């Protein structure tokens, strides 16, 4: 069946739109053209690859969990409380979105590093040293990815009609019960979207991680770092790992999108 292009779209837009699509698609074509299909299984099960996959999955999931536990409350406060300097706090929350991740990683190092303003007393008191550790990767990911969660949940909470929560209270539900049975279910689409974006951002994080946590295989070398290292040494490994990331990310984003539309 032939689909006609609606008259409301100028022909030039179709051409330019096609070019835009090419911008997204061409790198993928390049990647696919270099993929060593025959050795793919072997490449993806190498030590370096398996360590990187394990680390990427565990740190991105942990970062999403931390971002949820901390970010959802922050989103609620931003959406519902009015206090002096709220716009500054809001700006601070979005800073990691525009800051070069390397700068973020360096800033984290100054704050949480062994000699950092918080890191030094923390290390002295508890022996916990964040940089160049698994938790360091998680901390860098949280810093970079949490804005997605906060922004998405804050918007949803602000648009939520607070009278539903009042209605729930008159029906005998206490504050936590209202949160669990009314507020969270009602903002669920935005919460899930925020979670997925946060996870995806953490999964692909490179700059802040390499600066703050380094690239130690088996300890802090996540998939993006492994790709970067492999580009210098073993290009086929780099291509295989890149392809893996593309596939995983696409699956998550596409399924999120269809899920999102179902709930509109």
């Amino acid at each position, binding site marked *: 069946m032939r689909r006609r292009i609606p008259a409301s779209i100028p022909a030039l837009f179709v051409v330019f739109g096609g070019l835009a699509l090419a911008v997204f698609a061409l790198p993928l074509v390049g990647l696919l053209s270099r993929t060593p299909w025959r050795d793919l299984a072997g490449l993806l099960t190498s030590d370096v690859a398996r360590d990187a996959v394990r680390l990427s999955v565990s740190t991105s999931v942990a970062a999403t969990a931390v971002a949820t536990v901390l970010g959802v409350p922050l989103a609620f406060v931003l959406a519902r409380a009015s206090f002096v300097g709220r716009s500054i706090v809001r700006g601070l929350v979005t800073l990691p979105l525009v800051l070069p991740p390397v700068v973020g990683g360096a800033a984290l190092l100054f704050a949480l590093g062994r000699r950092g303003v918080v890191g030094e007393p923390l290390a002295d008191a508890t022996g916990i040293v964040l940089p160049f550790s698994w938790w360091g990767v998680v901390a860098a990911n949280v810093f970079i990815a949490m804005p997605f969660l906060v922004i998405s949940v804050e918007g949803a909470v602000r648009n939520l*009609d607070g*009278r*539903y929560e*009042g*209605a*729930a*209270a*008159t*029906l*005998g*539900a*206490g504050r936590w*019960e*209202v949160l669990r*049975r*009314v507020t969270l*279910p*009602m903002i*669920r689409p935005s919460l899930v979207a925020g979670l997925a974006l946060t996870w995806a951002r953490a999964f692909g994080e490179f700059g802040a991680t390499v600066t703050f946590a380094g690239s130690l295989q088996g300890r802090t070398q996540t998939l993006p770092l492994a790709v970067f290292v492999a580009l210098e040494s073993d290009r086929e490994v780099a291509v295989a790992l890149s392809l893996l990331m593309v596939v995983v990310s696409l699956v998550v984003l596409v399924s999120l999108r269809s899920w999102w539309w179902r709930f509109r």
Partner: protein
Amino acid sequence: MSGLEAHLRVRRDDGFVLDMSLSLDHGETVALLGPNGAGKSTAVSALAGLVPLDEGEIVLGGRTLDSQDVFVRPDLRRIGVVFQDYLLFPHLTAAENVAFGVRDRKRRREAAITWLARVGLADLADHMPGSLSGGQAQRVALARALASAPELLLLDEPLAALDVRTRLAMRRVLSEHLRAFPGPRLLITHDPTEAFTLADRILVLEAGSLTQVGTADDIRLRPRTRYVAELAGSNLFVGVADEGSVDVGGHVLQIADRFIAGPVTVTVRPSAVTVHLVRPAGSPRNVWETVVDLLEPIGDRVRLLTGAPLPLTVEITAESAVALGLGPGVPVWVAVKATEVEVEEG
């Protein structure tokens, strides 16, 4: 044990002040009647605990819910609210909405189904609120409030969002369930018909304070403010129709509709009533002899209240009032055409 005793004083952010007292007995329906912006919804929020009092107190069944020293959270107040636009939780089915406030967790679903059946919606248990009509959503909201076993029932403009036809049917459903609810019931409304037909007593709220308290007849026949006078402006009766006439408390009015039968609400506009010194000629008409009880000028018109057998509010021009030499105690004939008697089922 007493029902609800409250003195509400709330100052809103916009400077509006609500300051009113109310007292409701068990088994009594009281209407809080007032125009938009009178503070009715603020009163609901204060009673339900969604807004704290600035001064005053709320005592329900001997338990202080709000005062200078006490503030009971809304979830512990046991006040059932039917909200103006129902506020059914959109992510829960009708049954889950009703089950929300059922205290016995194990019997939630069972109790919800029972309540839905009582409002005639058992077959819609698994429908989402978005797929319910206004009347159905209203009944789910009523069932939800009642299922939480409240001690006080608050209805905030329960019929306002419905179309006219559904409103009449829902008024009957509401009246039935109000009567079955043992505690005090407070009906918030801007519609005098709703107040007159559903409430035992009426509190008139204007600009944050009560301007008149009384039965429907008190309000209707002796309005104390301009707003009440305008509200009461229409003569409203409840009666039983049969073959072209309506029996309103012993007095029979001829009506134009010969097929309507059963309980009805009858309205006669004050300007539809004519006043004569001798029996007017011509039929078919509702004509009876009575006396002028009260006479008050409203601009270039005059409002009369006539006495037994069927007290009416009548509006005539100041000119004819002078021409007829009307004054309190003057015997007159009043006439209403059958076509001017408006009859609604319900």
